[in-house]
């Protein structure tokens, strides 16, 4: 009975993880090749994201220490393009998989960062400065520069759009 109650209290995200692990268990029985390939890929991702995870933890700790709701209100709620500039810059210089940043953004949201700025940050995470040389090799430098500038402009439009829509209840 106690175990059942504990299970009921578990957040939905644990059921999601449980379901995925169950699929892996089935694959380990019925399709060893896919199972091993998936695990191999999983290992590669985990290996890559451990340093990012540590970085996110450090940034979250620093953010908890220095970025108080008052700080966010002061720097990101001020009028003008300054706040957008900081968010765009933050999105571009941040690294690692997008989902690693959700907890930090949720934390900043609780401190007063609006949805539009969060969307703008996430959009700009698509711009990877270290990968630009590779992109230029595959395409052309003109194409990559134009694409990057258009994406930055569109990220602001998306942010404004999301703020407008989220305001409508």
């Amino acid at each position: 009975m106690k175990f059942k109650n504990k299970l009921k209290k578990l957040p939905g995200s644990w059921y999601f993880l449980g379901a995925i692990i169950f699929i892996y268990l089935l694959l380990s029985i019925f399709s060893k090749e896919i199972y091993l390939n998936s695990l191999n890929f999983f290992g590669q991702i985990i290996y890559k994201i451990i340093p990012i995870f540590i970085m996110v933890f450090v940034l979250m700790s620093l953010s908890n220490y220095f970025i108080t709701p008052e700080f966010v209100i002061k720097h990101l709620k001020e009028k003008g393009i300054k706040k957008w500039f900081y968010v765009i810059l933050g999105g571009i210089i941040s690294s690692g998989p997008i989902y690693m940043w959700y907890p930090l953004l949720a934390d900043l949201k609780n401190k007063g960062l609006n949805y539009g700025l969060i969307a703008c940050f996430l959009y700009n995470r698509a711009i990877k400065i270290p990968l630009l040389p590779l992109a230029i090799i595959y395409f052309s430098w003109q194409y990559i520069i134009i694409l990057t500038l258009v994406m930055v402009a569109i990220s602001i439009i998306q942010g404004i759009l999301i703020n407008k829509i989220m305001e409508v209840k």
Partner: protein
Amino acid sequence: MKQSMTKAAKGLWNAFPMILGTILLISLISAIVPKSFYTTLFSKNILIDSIIGSSVGSISAGNPITSYIFGGEMLNQGIGLLAVTAFLVAWVTVGIIQLPAESTILGKKFAILRNITAFILSIIVAIVTVLILGVIA
């Protein structure tokens, strides 16, 4: 500072099952979907290909390096730059696979709205980029 670190650890622990589940799901899809699948989807119709490009990019996951390689291969196969651009942009801005994690942590309405607008905007980014490139080049 200790309090700040505890708070950060708690925040990450809350996100842990969703992050781990998402990585496992991405790994599974990468193992199941062959790379050649992406290049067989396009019809060489500019508009339809842009929508297909955005759709495929939206459900794909992985490092942007992979998207550049796919994008380069698509161009070599004769697929238009508009479709390839839509694919590249959607790959990095729309996250269907990450949607459960994003919904749980940042809110369902925001996550759905952000992904829908990112999908539509990926087509707009592609059109604007190719138009500007056409004028400049």
